[in-house]
């Protein structure tokens, strides 16, 4: 019975310790609770309400009726209209819309002749999104064309599709730049959160806070080395992505650098904030996971952002990874200019600055 007694002693001790580590205990409850609710609602592989734009060059009522009919399917949500196809393409590059319907000026004639009606420009980078949009290719026109004399030529689709950025529809094209975001979230947040907590656990911090060093100096000094670590990781992921998976970088390398730098800074600051809350490295690790899971599932990495309900989208907006996911895909896949992604840029800069201030305030040079 001695072995059983010893095992029991360990079990009781573990349970007591677990119960007394309030943050860990909280995480035991919170991780499944919050994450289940969050993801149960948010994860939706049935894609709806994809934002698209319309370019109506025909100026005919038919185009408007057609647009309305397509809207009713709820697959797409027409959020903007543009004057030229060129403007619509630019909006796709910026990530504002995922596709555009282009109605040519001879639309009415095409209907009569049973020809292809117009063009559907699709952002092919996310294969889930593009598959959903491709359903519109053979959109039935029975509901609008009630004139029995007009019949569609059997082999003609409704729209001619132009698949941008990922014509072969390979999922790696979308996954690899996104993976940069996930890997950076994982390592950057964990590194910084553990870096300060480790000093506290090992007693170095007690000495450090008796010196004239300021909180903000310590915070900045802690962050900067890891920026280099982050950049090395980006080079590895994107380099291998190119060499092994043939995912090239369409955009400017400097833009890639700029965008990742912003994201690394934001992630490091997030880690710093965690380090001012966590007391042990284990707690820091758990809080990192708490951030990491939604960064994988809600940021648009696994499931299209557009397919998530509004509430989940708001949560996703809080995560630096969501903004980065948009920007890195825009730059790497669509060749976007980093400066054109104003909103996401500003958001990450704001997050970094405010986060740094919060961390410095929270980090007290005191023991009580």
């Amino acid at each position, binding site marked *: 019975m001695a072995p059983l007694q010893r095992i029991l002693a360990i079990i009781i001790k573990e349970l007591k310790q677990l119960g007394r580590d309030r943050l860990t205990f909280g995480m035991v409850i919170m991780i499944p609770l919050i994450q289940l609710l969050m993801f149960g609602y948010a994860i939706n592989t049935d894609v709806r309400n994809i934002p698209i734009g319309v370019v109506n060059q025909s100026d005919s009522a038919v185009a408007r009726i057609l647009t309305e009919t397509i809207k009713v399917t709820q697959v797409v949500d027409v959020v903007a209209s543009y004057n030229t196809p060129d403007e619509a393409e630019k909006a796709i590059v910026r990530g504002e819309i995922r596709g555009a319907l282009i109605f040519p000026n001879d639309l009415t004639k095409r209907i009569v002749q049973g020809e292809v009606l117009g063009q559907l420009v699709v952002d092919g980078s996310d294969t889930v999104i593009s598959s959903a949009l491709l359903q519109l290719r053979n959109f039935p026109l029975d509901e609008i064309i009630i004139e029995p004399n007009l019949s569609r030529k059997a082999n003609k689709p409704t729209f001619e599709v132009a698949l941008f950025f990922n014509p072969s529809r390979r999922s790696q094209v979308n996954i690899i730049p996104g993976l940069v975001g996930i890997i950076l979230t994982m390592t950057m947040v964990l590194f910084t959160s553990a870096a300060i907590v480790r000093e506290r656990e090992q007693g*170095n911090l*007690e*000495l450090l806070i*008796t*010196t004239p060093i300021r909180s903000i100096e310590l915070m900045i000094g802690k962050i900067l080395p890891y920026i280099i670590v982050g950049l090395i990781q980006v080079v590895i992921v994107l380099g291998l992505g190119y060499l092994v998976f043939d995912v090239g970088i369409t955009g400017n390398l400097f833009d890639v650098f700029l965008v990742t730098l912003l994201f690394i800074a934001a992630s490091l600051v997030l880690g710093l904030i965690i380090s001012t809350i966590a007391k042990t490295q284990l707690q820091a690790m758990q809080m990192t996971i708490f951030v990491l899971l939604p960064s994988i599932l809600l940021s648009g990495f696994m499931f299209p952002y557009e397919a998530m309900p509004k509430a989940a989208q708001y949560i996703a907006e809080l995560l630096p990874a969501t903004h980065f996911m948009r920007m890195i895909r825009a730059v790497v896949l669509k060749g976007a200019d980093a400066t054109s992604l104003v909103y996401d840029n500003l958001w990450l800069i704001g997050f970094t600055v405010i986060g740094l201030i919060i961390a410095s305030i929270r980090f007290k040079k*005191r*023991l009580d």
Partner: protein
Amino acid sequence: MRINNRDNFAIYTQGLTKKFGSLTAVNQLNLSIETGSIYGFLGPNGCGKSTTIRMLCGLLTPTSGTAEVMGFAIPQQAEALKKQVGYMTQKFSLYGDLTVVENLKFMGQIFGLNHRYLKTRIDELISRYNLLAQKDQRVASMSGGQKQRLALAASVMHKPALLFLDEPTSAVDPENRRDFWEKLFDLSESGTTILVSTHYMDEAERCHQLAILERGAMKAEGTPEKLMQEIAAEVVEVKGSHLRQLKSQLLAFPEIKSVAQQGIRLRVLVDKNVSHPIEFIKTKITDEDLECNMAHPSLEDVFVTVTGNSISETANKGNA
């Protein structure tokens, strides 16, 4: 305490108190520590030594009371004070994965020493604290004594006017302890005020001034010599058989303050009001082969008389 005298004091506190919840860790502490002296806190673990030191360097906020350290009001002006104090923590707190030189360089840079001066200062400290052979060794693999010398070197890097040492020799052997104190006397000689906490009697005896702390309160203060002279008890060494029984017999008398066995002897503290302590014992205990001698009081005896317990007993009570 006259106000114009305060200039002579490196540390001056009035009613300094720290409570953690319902526990009073430091209770109404009045300190006046002269500039340039070595001042000791003697007491068992949990008596408030570390808490007091942490309050005096601004790491903990006092619950009540005032403190002035090097002329700075604490905790309000703690940041300004930090340039002038060195602090050697109870637990070794430099970086185990850096070498001796790297650690010293780091601390020097944190204190803003300029590059060229830092280099000569590090060489100076390495030779003064006998770390030449370990210069490029990673600290984690060094012995307790070497780590302690490094910690002292790091804490005096910026030539602080005031040095806090929190149980500096708890991890080293007696020989290293003696060497360490030689270094402290050198520092004191050059004008550094040193506040050191300890639970070792031999260490306490080396201080210029000593405060005996028990459960956050000061029980006695003075030079070690004065404390031993003014002890409120006579010390009698008793030799005999059946010492364990003898001890419990003696403790039954209220005049006997304490009895501690030391090998084949009992060290008995008898109240000062008893005019002939040896006679007193002999009349109380009817044992013909009892051999009694008067002895000089030690610091341990002082500690026992002011706190009513030996240092290890007090520690045990504190932990319970």
